[in-house]
Structures are given as C-alpha cells and as structure tokens.
C-alpha cells in the first residue's frame, strides 16, 4: 500500500496569495494512499526540506509529492532531500502549482480546484513511480571547442591548462575572429592584435590543443561525456606538414584583386592567401572560387614556385572523427549587412561603411595602414557622422534588442578619428548612451569632453549624396527636435550585432535551442548562463548574445571551468530516465515481436537487435534492446510500440496513464 506524503509550499505568497493552500492540503489528505499532507511557507528552505525528511522517516513514506514551483526549478533539490533519508530520489515528484497555476490564474475557487487537480495527478503518478538507480557512464576527457575567436581561444587555453585535451575547430583559415580585425579596444585603447596574438600563438604551441582551422563541424552525436563529432577539414589545397609559411606563393599569385574578408572588403588579397600576417596557423589557403587554375585549368604558378612542393590542387575535404566529452560553442556574432536601412545608402555609397570597416581603416595593419581615408577616393574625411543604433533597438525595421557594444565602440571610433585627423569634425547620432562597465562611462565622457566629439541625441532619417558630399538628415531631439542636415565625407553605421548566418543549422546539429534572433539559448538566464539545455554543451562569447571582449573572455573561462569540473571525474552519473524493453522469464522471454519500427524512430541509434537463444544455441527470437549509454529518454520509441514492450522510466505507461485518469476524475478525489 502506498504511503504518499504531499508537501504544499506557499512560496512566500507566490502560491498562497491565489491558491487556498490549506484547502489543497486537506483535499490531498483525502486522496487514497496519501499518508501525510502539510503546507509550509517555504518548502525549499532548510526547515522546509527538513519537514519532508522528517515525514519520510516518521511516517515511512513510500513516495513524495512536493506541490510548489516548476520541477525545472527545484526537482533536484527535493530529490536530493529524499535521497538523504534513504528514499529513492525517483520516488519524488513535483506538482507545479506556481508557474502553471498560482501565477497564471486569479485568486478563486477555480484556481484552488486546479491546484488540487495537479496534486491529485502527481500523487497518482508517484504511486506508479519505481525506484531507479542512476546510470554510470564513462567520460571522454577531451573537449571540442567550436570557434577560434577570443572566446574559443580563451576556453581552449583554460581547458588545456587544466590538463585536458582540446580540439579547436575554426571555420576560417586562421583563428583570431573578430577581435583580430579590431584596431584598438575600449576603454583602454590598447592595440587589439597586441593583446590577442600572443594568445593565438599559445594555442598553436600548446601540447594539449589540436587546432583544426579551415574546418567545420559536420555532425555531433552522442551525449555528455560521450560525444562523437565529425569535423570537415576543408581542402586548403596545401599539404600543411610541408608548408613552412614562407609566403612566396602569396606574393607571386597573379590573381590579386579579391576583396579581402579580413579587411571587411576594403582591402585586396590574392587567390592564395593568409588572411593576415599574424595568422595562426600561418599557412595559406587557395580560394578556389577565384583561383585562375580552378577557374580555367591553367596557371599553377604557386605550385611551381613553392620551395617545399606543398601545393595540392587535387586535395579533397577530409572528415575527421573525434570522440569528445564536452563541447564549448564559441561561434561568435556577425553584424547586420544588406539593405535593411535603404535610406542610409549602406551598400549604395562607398563612403557609408559599417563599424567593422572603420576598425580596418583605423588599424595599423589595415588597407590604409591606419590612416583614416575614405574608401571612395582615399580622401581624409573632414566630417564624419557616426550613427549608433543602426538597426538595433528598432522593432519596426531592425531588431528589438540592444547590440550592447556599439555605444562603446562608436565612442572609440570617434576618438580614434580625432586622434588621427586633428581638425576633423566627428558627430555621433545616438538614442541613449549605454556605458555600463568598468571605466566605460568615463571613456564616453572623454570622447565628448576631451576629444570634442559632438554627440547629437536623435536619429537620422536618411543619407544621400549631393555634390560629392553625403548629406545626413537628422534631428536633434534635445534642441527642440530641430531638423539637422550635416554634409559629411564619411558615414559610419554601428549596424546591429546579429547571430552568425549558420547559427540555426549549427544549433540543430548540436541539438541546442536558440532564441528568436538565432542566438544560442543558455539553460537559465541567470543561474546557468554558460550551459545549454543539452548536457555537456556549453556556450562562450557572442554566440549567446552580443558581448564585448571582457565579457566574452569571462564567459569562456566560465565554460572552461564547467568542462574542467565535468572532466574531474572519470565517470558521470546520469539520470536513469531511459527506455527499457520488456524482459520476462521463459517461455515468453519478451513481449517484443521484433518488428523494429522503434529502431527507425530512435534519434540516437540506441536500439539494438538482441538474439535470444536457448541453451542449445537455437535462436528463439530476435528482440529489441535499448543501449542505456545512448538512450536519451525521449520516448519516441515508446509511442510506436504496438505491444507496449518498450517503456520509459520516469514517464512510464502506468505513470502517464494514471496521470490522465487522475487529472480528469475529480469525483474520485474524495473517494
């Protein structure tokens, strides 16, 4: 006979303000099989948990229902409390009467009735719960880091320095990411490359790090501790082991007028190229789309001059399979391109550029060697208009959210411009200045007060060309919404920071969720900001939301710490909420008839064929078997099984069936 304890939480007043908790407790007490029913102000507090533990011991409870908040919040808390008394933790269930009841309904009888319904449902479930034993799975102590920007670099180094192997995958020919493109960094104005390149070199030389540059994740299967990743190493057209990075090929390549990605389209590069001089690895790659040989079948100049005969025109993409125990996703962000603000002339006028392009103009390694010269004619601009919030915080035409980094880098840009062009007139059009951060507000003040940047609070309506000038029409909302017209030489748009173009596809490969803007979703916005909802996959940097460098680095170190913690044990304990196939003594053996429809339904290839043989070795029947290491517990197989031979622990046929009946049979509450 079941002896169930029901524990009803007031959650301060979060529940008790709309639900009559006393009535719920009284009703629960009348449910057959309920041996104990109490309510308490904060069930999750220490004294609250003690109530549960004492009752288990004193009343000999065989199951526990905590009617409180979402199981996503405190299920582990109460299961742990149960386990401390020796009650199997899987005999504890949460009845969610807060998120699904008290918070979403008005105070009244109907709300209390519903809370009672929920409690009755979970009591019916817990009566069918079975004691389950956790599953031990081995952990492969190798981390996969996807993305070699500053976040990926930091995470790789931290994990590697903790003594674990790291496989770092970077899509581009070199690691470095957006940070390597930047000129100076706010709020210190130190040179971006000067602080980044030592880290890049450290990655290249670290004995624990295997770097796959110019490579992408093909697929990821498995689960925490036991992932199998397939990595596509795109053909560089080069034998990296032979290449010494001498650069002869890149100097001699006859196809030289290709807009370079690293210079955000402002500079030119050859068809065989290293993205930038400090690239890691410092090995070129042939851009097959532009290379004369691939286009016409003639040339092969690089092959001829290469001193080590490293060029391989017939190289194919290579798929590398690796086993890893954890994944850090650090794929970064992109800026919004295209014509979402056609009235600003971005893409139409060469002198309307984005922030990243300005970084290249201001960078000593950039196409102008650090001199601010406008792209159209190379003239040093006398007036520059910087437009903050070009697309950000604009639900009508752009995106709703704040891109977070633009206020700071726009201030930096204006400052850099003033430092480099002394007589120049910088204007910044802004909505608000968001300079929360150590030394950030001071930095913006400095731009306004010391460097004479003219900040105009207002938006611009359009930019058009007139007599060789860019006419910027806007309004100064602080001075009586006075319309303004500025004749500028260069317009810099701080276009919105958005997710990487392939983010959605990558999320689907990784089985992690993403938000409406395709940024990857953290497991909890406050308490689990570096985890995803998929165990063993962590987030670092701007792939989760726009972030500046210090934040990206901090999150990367956080993710690395999570990985290191995971790798601190050689075995991992998994919840046993997995599918199992019926087994019985002979002569039945199993009710499974071996149709294996479940096998084609399983997303994890967790269903195997098992041959049941008699003592004489004669095959009696072939039935399904679930590999407990691979099964993730989705239960899709369960719904396909006609003989109900597969069941899923924790959401078993008996449990869910009992829930449906109990939920709908209010009449039996008092019975």
């Amino acid at each position, binding site marked *: 006979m079941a002896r169930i304890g029901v524990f009803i939480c007031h959650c301060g007043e979060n529940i008790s303000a709309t639900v009559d908790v006393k009535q719920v407790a009284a009703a629960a007490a009348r449910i*057959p099989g309920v041996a104990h029913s109490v309510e308490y102000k904060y069930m999750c507090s220490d004294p609250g948990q003690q109530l549960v533990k004492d009752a288990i011991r004193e009343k000999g409870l065989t199951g526990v229902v905590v009617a409180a908040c979402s199981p996503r919040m405190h299920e582990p808390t109460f299961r742990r409390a149960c386990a401390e008394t020796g009650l199997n933790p899987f005999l504890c269930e949460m009845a969610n009467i807060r998120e699904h009841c008290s918070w979403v309904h008005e105070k009244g009888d109907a709300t209390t009735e519903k809370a009672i319904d929920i409690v009755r449902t979970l009591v019916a479930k817990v009566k069918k719960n079975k004691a389950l034993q956790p599953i031990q799975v081995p952990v492969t102590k190798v981390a996969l880091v996807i993305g070699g920007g500053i976040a990926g670099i930091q995470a790789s180094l931290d994990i590697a320095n903790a003594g674990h192997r790291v496989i770092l995958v970077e899509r581009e020919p070199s690691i470095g990411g957006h940070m390597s493109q930047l000129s100076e960094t706010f709020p210190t104005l130190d040179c971006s490359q000067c602080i980044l390149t030592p880290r890049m070199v450290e990655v290249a030389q670290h004995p624990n790090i295997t770097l796959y540059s110019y490579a992408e994740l093909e697929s990821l299967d498995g689960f925490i501790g036991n992932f199998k990743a397939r990595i596509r190493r795109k053909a560089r057209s080069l034998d990296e082991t032979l290449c010494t990075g001498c650069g002869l090929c890149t100097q001699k390549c006859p196809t030289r007028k290709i807009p370079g990605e690293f210079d955000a389209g402002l500079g030119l590069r050859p068809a065989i190229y290293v993205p930038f001089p400090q690239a890691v690895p410092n090995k070129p790659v042939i851009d097959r789309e532009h290379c004369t040989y691939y286009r016409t079948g003639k040339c092969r100049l690089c092959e001829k001059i290469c001193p080590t005969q490293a060029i391989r025109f017939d190289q194919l993409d290579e798929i590398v399979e690796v086993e890893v125990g954890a994944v850090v996703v650090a794929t970064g962000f992109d800026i919004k391109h295209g014509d979402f603000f056609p009235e600003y002339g971005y893409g139409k006028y060469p002198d309307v550029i984005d922030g990243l392009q300005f970084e290249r103009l201001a960078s000593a390694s950039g196409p102008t060697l650090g001199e601010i010269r406008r792209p159209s004619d190379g003239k040093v601009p006398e007036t520059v208009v910087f437009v903050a919030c070009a697309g950000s915080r604009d639900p009508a035409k752009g995106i709703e959210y704040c891109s977070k980094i633009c206020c700071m880098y726009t201030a930096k840009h204006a400052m850099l411009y003033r430092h480099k062009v002394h007589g120049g007139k910088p204007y910044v059009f802004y909505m608000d200045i968001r300079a929360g951060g150590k030394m950030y507000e001071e930095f913006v003040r400095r731009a306004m007060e010391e460097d004479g940047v003219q900040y105009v609070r207002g938006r611009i309506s359009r930019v058009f060309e007139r007599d060789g000038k860019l006419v910027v029409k806007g309004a100064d909302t602080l001075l009586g919404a006075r319309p303004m017209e500025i004749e500028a030489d260069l317009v810099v748009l701080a276009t919105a920071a958005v997710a990487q173009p392939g983010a959605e596809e990558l999320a689907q490969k990784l089985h992690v969720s993403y938000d409406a803007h395709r940024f990857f979703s953290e497991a909890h916005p406050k308490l689990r900001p570096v985890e995803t909802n998929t165990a063993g996959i962590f987030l670092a940097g701007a792939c989760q939301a726009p972030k500046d460098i210090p934040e990206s680095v901090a999150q990367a170190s956080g993710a690395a710490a999570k990985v290191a913690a995971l790798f601190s044990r050689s075995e991992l304990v998994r919840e046993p909420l997995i599918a199992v196939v019926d087994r019985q003594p002979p*002569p*039945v053996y199993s009710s499974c008839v071996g149709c294996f429809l479940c096998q084609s339904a399983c997303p994890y290839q967790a269903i195997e064929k098992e041959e049941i043989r008699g003592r004489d070795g004669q095959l009696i029947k072939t039935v399904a078997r679930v590999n407990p290491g691979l099964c993730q517990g989705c239960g899709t197989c369960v719904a396909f099984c006609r003989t109900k031979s597969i069941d899923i622990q924790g959401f078993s046929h008996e449990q869910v069936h009992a829930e449906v009946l109990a939920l709908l*049979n209010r009449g*039996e509450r008092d*019975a």
Partner: protein
Amino acid sequence: METEKRSIQREALAKLIEQWCREGKRVLAPRKSGDKVDFDRVTSLSEVSFDHVQTVQSPKSAVFPRVEELFSFRSADGQVEVRDRELDILPETVVFGLRPCDAAAFAALEAIFNWDAPDRLFTARRARTTLVAVACSRADEYCFCTSVGGGPGAVAGSDILLTDLGQGEFLAEIASAKGREMLQAADSLFGPALDADKESRLAKPAAVFAADAVAAVLAGLFADTAFWEEQSRRCVGCGACAYVCPTCACFDIQDEGGASGKRLRCWDSCGFGLFTLHTSGHNPRPLQSQRWRQRLMHKFSYMPERQGVLGCVGCGRCSRGCPVDMNILEHLRAIAEARP
C-alpha cells in the same frame, strides 16, 4: 407437459407482437440488415425476417449478454461498498423467430450456468425469457441438427413453436407452461388446431454422424497431436465461432473504473491464445491445434460427460461465421471416421 396445438394467422401474429410490446416486453427477433440477418429488438412483425436459414449470432445474448454488469462498487473512507445488480429491472423478453436448434441450446446454457452454484443473473434473465421459435423450412450445407439429437421441427426447448403452413397460416405448438401463459394472455389471436402435415413443411437436413460415436472416438483422440495439427492448420485463432455459438458460455471478468466502478462479465473464447495464459508466463495450450481440440472436446466429450448435454445443437453458425472456413461438420465427420 402435453404439447397443445393451435394455429395463428400472420395478421394475428402481428398483433401478438404489438401486444407484447405494449406489455413492455423486449421482443428480439431476426432482422435483415444489409446482407446479414441477426437478432435485434423489433416492435412489429414487418421487421422480422422469416426466409433466412439462420442468423449470424445466436439468441444467447438474451440471457448471457456480451457484456454484463455483475455488480458495482464504490470505496470511500477506507470502506468498500458493493451493490448487486437489481434483478427486477431485467427486462421481460420474448425471443421470437429463433430456430428449434437455438431453442434447444438454452438447455446447454442452463446446464453450464447452473452446474454447481446457480448463476443469479443468468437464472433471472432466463426466467424472464420466453422462446417463440419458428420451424425450419430450409436448411443449408452447414446445418446438422439431426446429427445432434435435434430437428428442424423439434419442439424441445421452445415455449411455442410456429411452423409456416403457407398462405399466411402458422401451426402453433404450445410446449411449456410459459407458452401456455402466453397463449392465455392472447387466446383470441390463436385459432384452432389445423389438420396439416407439418413434416412436409420442414427442411430435411441429413444426419451425418452419431454424436455418441464422436464422443467415444474423442475420448481416445486427445493425444493424437498430428491429427489435431492437421485438422486445425487453417484455423487462425479468432473468437468468431465461440461468439456466434448458441452454447458457448466462457466469459472473462473485468473491473472498470477506479475507486468506484463496475465488475463486468464479458464473452471470451477458448480459441484465443491468451485464454489459458498463466501469470507465470506458462500457457498449457500454446498452440492453435490444442485450442481447436479443446473446443471440440468440450462440446462433444466433456459436456456430455459432466453436464449430460451435448455442447452443440448443429446450428452451423460457427462454420458460416468462420473467416477461414473451418467447417465443423467436416471435422466431426473426420473424427467419427478416425480410428485412434
């Protein structure tokens, strides 16, 4: 009791049915629906089929419904309250137009349900049921009543047996006290006995085997596995034969509901693989051949031995209803001819 002979005209028969209905009786009679004829509730003679050979189902559901509530229960405050079925609300029923073989089948049902402890519900229903049979003017290749002690004009089992004499006239043989009661309640509708040749109106199904000979052979045939496998190879193991059979009485007990609910008696069949499955997983009759053997043994060997009646009246329904043409007559002939 002496059988009293009277006559009744078709028009009077119609009035008789209307009278029964007026008296609140449930009248079940063969009725045509699509290409099948089956027992159904009727309120007038025009709904009743006469020209069929046999209905799909037997009339046994009048006394042994396919689902019957035995009692209801309710648990509250740790107490369980059980409520028996009220017997007086069971309907007075007239089964009209059943065949003499069907009428004879009630004796087999009575023998089973009252074998040791009398079955309250069955007995109450049976007591409220009157059988007004119609003799067979046609038989088909599946009929074999004459091999099992019955006949197309046999009176045994009927309360009243009607024989169609042509021109809208029926011979009415009143064969029981219940029949007499029925006659008395509507005496004016019946005419005097007619001098007619009943036999000439009847079908003539041939007698194919002797039931006691079959019983004798079966007694020694139990262990002849090869025989039964050969006999049953075509059988797919459904319950159609048992469910249409007028004498099959196996049932299963099911509880429905949670803390309050009903206990139900539902038809079951020995042809199902799970019929004899034990909780342990052991099944004493795992093969269809064994289940087929059980069906024949039960009807032709065990029942005569234990209850003193045959478990078969030769209606042929099981053969007609079988999806794979397991024609019982052929099998019985094979048994009679078998020499174990």
